[in-house]
């Protein structure tokens, strides 16, 4: 534990691995640090690996959730900066999934000395179509998504309970499942969804001062390939790599390929 156990506790920060350089992994909307379980461990041999949950997600201290603070992504940016301060991170590699790519970018604009590189998985600066910009979604479609979030949380709670029952003979596994991905508080999830999907940070892209890698799935309905290309074109020192896959979570569906692309990119640094 550091000198500021408050932040470590608040954001359920987990530090592992060996290495002088740090990789900090930031989960996307609706999930928590468990989504990195098949990718982060691959870097533990060469890097100090930092995992955490945003306030309101996973095993974070939910009592620290402040509706006003987390109304926009800046509340989450502050979470990242607080962790960087507590761990005294410098020149870290920030790995962000989905909305966390933008959170990482905003954090790097505010505190450039903390980050040496950004790795963005499925990023989007703006989900709404704002012609000529193509974000992928019309407004009512995003409202439809919020509506689905509203209508689903009861079902999940039931699903989790059933799974715990099924693993009675392995209590430790049952416990892990209970706190598994997507166990976010429904009210918080809704606010996070609104902060994420109705945001527009396109103007921030040109300000990027830290080199970045964009990992894009060839067929991603959440962050379409055209959006990844837009990011790449508007950010200085950015690289884009496409994984031939459908989906928005290549680190879950194609962990090996994702790790390989990240390693390859990290190899070109130094």
């Amino acid at each position, binding site marked *: 534990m550091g000198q500021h156990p408050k932040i470590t506790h608040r954001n359920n920060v987990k530090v592992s691995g060996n290495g002088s350089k740090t990789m900090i992994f930031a989960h996307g909307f609706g999930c928590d640090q468990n989504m990195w379980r098949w990718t982060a461990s691959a870097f533990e041999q060469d890097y100090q690996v930092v995992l955490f949950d945003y306030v309101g997600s996973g095993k974070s201290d939910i009592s620290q959730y402040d509706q006003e603070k987390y109304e926009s992504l800046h509340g989450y940016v502050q979470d990242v900066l607080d962790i960087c301060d507590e761990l005294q991170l410098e020149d870290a590699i920030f790995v962000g999934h989905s909305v966390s790519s933008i959170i990482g970018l905003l954090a790097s604009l505010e505190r450039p000395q903390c980050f040496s590189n950004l790795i963005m998985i499925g990023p989007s600066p703006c989900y709404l179509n704002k012609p000529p910009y193509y974000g992928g979604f019309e407004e009512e479609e995003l409202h439809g998504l919020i509506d689905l979030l509203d*209508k689903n949380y009861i079902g999940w709670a039931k699903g989790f309970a059933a799974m715990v029952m099924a693993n009675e003979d392995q209590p430790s596994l049952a416990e892990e499942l209970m706190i598994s991905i997507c166990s976010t508080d429904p009210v918080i999830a809704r606010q996070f969804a609104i902060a994420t999907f109705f945001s527009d940070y396109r103007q921030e892209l040109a300000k990027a001062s830290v080199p970045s890698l964009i990992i894009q799935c060839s067929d991603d*309905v959440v962050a379409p390939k055209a959006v990844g290309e837009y990011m790449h074109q508007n950010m200085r020192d950015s690289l884009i790599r496409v994984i031939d896959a459908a989906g928005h979570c290549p680190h879950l569906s194609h962990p090996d390929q994702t790790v390989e692309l990240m390693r390859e990119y990290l190899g070109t640094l130094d």
Partner: protein
Amino acid sequence: MDRQLDEAPCGFLMLSDNGNILSVNRTLLELLGFDRYDLINKHMNQLLTKPSRIFCQLYFFPLIRHENKIEEMHFSLQKKGGEEIPALIFANRHKKEGVFVIECVLVPMHQRLEFESEILKARNIAAAALKEAAETNKELEKVLCELQAKQKELIKLNKQKEQYQERIKRELDLAKNIQGISLSTPFSNEEISISAYYQSSNELSGDMYSFYQISPGKYGFIILDVMGHGISSALISMSLRSLFQLLIMKGATAEEIMAELDTQLHLLFRNGDGIKHYCTAIFLTIDTNTKEIEYINAGHPPALWIGRDTEITEFKSTIPPIGIFEDLTFRKSSFAYQEGGRLFLYTDGVTEAISANTLNLLVKEQEPIHAIKEKIVHFLKLDEEIGIKVDDRCFLLIEV
């Protein structure tokens, strides 16, 4: 696919881990209006509305990969023509012939969804109401806080007021003492004997008496009652007293004295914005050499002369109180007396407490005047004990 599954009363889908459709049953095809060949090897997104596609990317696929099982997830299917069908999805992920497949059961849920929508609407209303209540509560707490601060302030002010009242009371007591001291001191000699009583209602009195030896054998007396009680009446009576002392020492006549007092009252209230204090008074001289009493009674209760034969003569008022009308003409009256009688001067506070008959009987008593005074005072005290509000009282008993 076996016939039972193909015709089961629910939709069935088998997906690859990537979400590509491996097989689909006839129930689902008929529900959505697709042909089997439209869907095989296409992504599941083909069957979903756009919000549901994102939702599946965010939740369905990550969840199924982690937990290998999904229960009661809700999203919307889309018919070939575009029409939306809300559905519940149950899914399992397991290995089949070496690769992971996802098997899904889909149940349309039009009516249940309506019900859920209602519940959600109610929840949102309740949440809004709760929020409003919380805000109202916050507002109330603020008001309460302010109220407590106000109350504190009031308590402080009240304390200040009490201190102020305490001070005022001390001042009034002092003023009352001064007023008492300023009254003439009764005396006796071979010609005349004076006994006096003076009691203010509560704080300061508008009653006043004074006497003075004008020349050997000649004495001047005044008794007056300024309308009302309290500070203003007391100040007026004090100012009249000073004037009286000055005038009588200068040897002013009875008419001059009364006229000057009258003028003084008018002067006092010249700029009084209509406020007027009037005053009833008797000025009286006793000349023991000529055995003559001269007096002017302006609106005051009659002075009583009790002769040696106990016959009572009243020196009644002949003019209105002073301080009301300008240009009053004062004319003194005279009375020749015989030695051995006594004179009783009083303010109306005395006759309010003791009836005229009783008073007449008391002053007639064949006793020394100090004994009579004690009796009258005794009656006044009795009245004070039962009285709710008492007037200022004073009287003079003079024996010649």
